[in-house]
């Protein structure tokens, strides 16, 4: 928290206003796919989100892979025991929800989602101004960097949409295209032709609301967490008492955030498993 002094000093040089501070921290390091930075259409990539998420994904899954590669059935090493703890936790959760062959796809997917989202959420623990300081050291004072990929709607929506497509894929795979269409029109109210529109509307709402609630829950929690850190950072810039209270509340919010980070990763994983399991069941 003490670093906020230095950072605030740096911002003070640029005579940054509170709204400018917040805007700076909530802007993405965006680049147009065609090289045009100012382009704000669809063909834009958030380099910060992409680099952080891909690096974290391969770091976390790579670490697990390093352990899994040498996994022995005998006495496990401490690293293997830890990985097996996580493995068993995920496997138990999936086992309770999904009653098919979970090992071929759903359980590994749940492990990936949980560990990856947890790692991405954890970036919220990095002091926001440290990240800004490091990035401005390399990229200049106006370089922007959002360290938490899950506070980017693109990330959470990408994950939720991928799960959504998997949901439809498994639905069709398990019930057949005819079975899936039948379910679209004939559940939950019945097979009579005059309830078909109601059924279809109901299912449509369900199919739209699932990815929205799935992605927006995670995004909202992470975004709100980040904004509160930024507000505390602003408060810390208002003087000695502001710094003290900002530091204390920042520490408190960080500790509380440990729970949110783990909980949101767990909820996202559970919803993924629930949606995929529901796709396997006939109504």
């Amino acid at each position, binding site marked *: 928290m003490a670093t906020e002094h230095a950072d605030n000093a740096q911002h003070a040089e640029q005579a940054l206003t509170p709204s400018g501070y917040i805007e700076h921290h909530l802007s993405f390091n965006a680049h147009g796919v065609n090289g045009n930075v100012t382009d704000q259409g669809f063909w834009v990539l958030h380099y910060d989100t992409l680099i952080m998420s891909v690096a974290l994904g391969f770091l976390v899954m790579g670490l697990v892979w390093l352990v899994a590669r040498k996994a022995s059935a005998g006495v496990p090493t401490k690293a293997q025991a830890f990985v097996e703890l996580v493995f068993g936790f995920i496997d138990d959760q999936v086992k309770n929800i999904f009653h098919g062959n979970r090992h071929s796809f759903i359980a590994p997917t749940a492990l990936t989602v949980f560990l990856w989202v947890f790692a991405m959420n954890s970036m919220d623990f990095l002091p926001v101004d440290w990240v800004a300081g490091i990035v401005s050291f390399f990229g200049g004072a106006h370089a922007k960097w959002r360290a938490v990929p899950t506070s980017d709607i693109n990330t959470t929506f*990408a994950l939720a949409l991928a799960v959504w497509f998997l949901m439809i894929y498994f639905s069709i795979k398990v019930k057949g295209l005819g079975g899936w269409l039948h379910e679209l029109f004939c559940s939950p109210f019945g097979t009579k032709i005059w309830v078909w529109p109601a059924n279809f509307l109901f299912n449509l709402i369900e199919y739209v609301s699932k990815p929205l609630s799935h992605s927006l829950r995670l995004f909202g929690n992470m975004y709100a967490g980040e904004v509160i850190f930024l507000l505390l950072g602003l408060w810390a810039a208002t003087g000695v008492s502001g710094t003290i209270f900002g530091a204390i509340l920042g520490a408190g919010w960080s500790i509380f955030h440990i729970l949110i980070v783990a909980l949101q990763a767990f909820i996202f994983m559970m919803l993924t498993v629930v949606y995929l399991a529901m796709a396997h069941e006939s109504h």
Partner: protein
Amino acid sequence: MNINFTLVAQALAFATLIWFTVKFVWPPLLNAIETRQKEIADGLAAASEGRSALEVAAKKSEVTINEAKQKASEIIGQAEKRASQIVEEAKGNAKVEGDRILAGAKAEIDQEVNRAKEGLRAQVSSLAIAGAEKILRKEIDAKAHSEMLSKLAAEL
């Protein structure tokens, strides 16, 4: 809140991570854990099997020991019985033999005594006759003397 191409890139990254986990991370972990679980289950089963086998063996050995003890005491009893029987038999045999020997000896002694008596009788009469001849040469009173002599012989 701007949806853009990042979404597609993130979805691709997600797909790659899922593929990686499905292919390389999950199977070795699952294999290791399931193999260990099986080994532990086998070990526990073997242990309980061993325990029950031990119990059976202990029971069996107890039964065997009891049987052996019983047999041993039976054998000892039989041997004692047989020994006393043999002693009794030997005693009886010895007594019979002793009696037989004693009876034989007594009969022999009687026979010897009788033979000696006959011999003495024969000798006494001849001695008496010889003595009488000598006496007769001096004084013959055949009647009185033979009376005396036969009285003497009868006393023997």
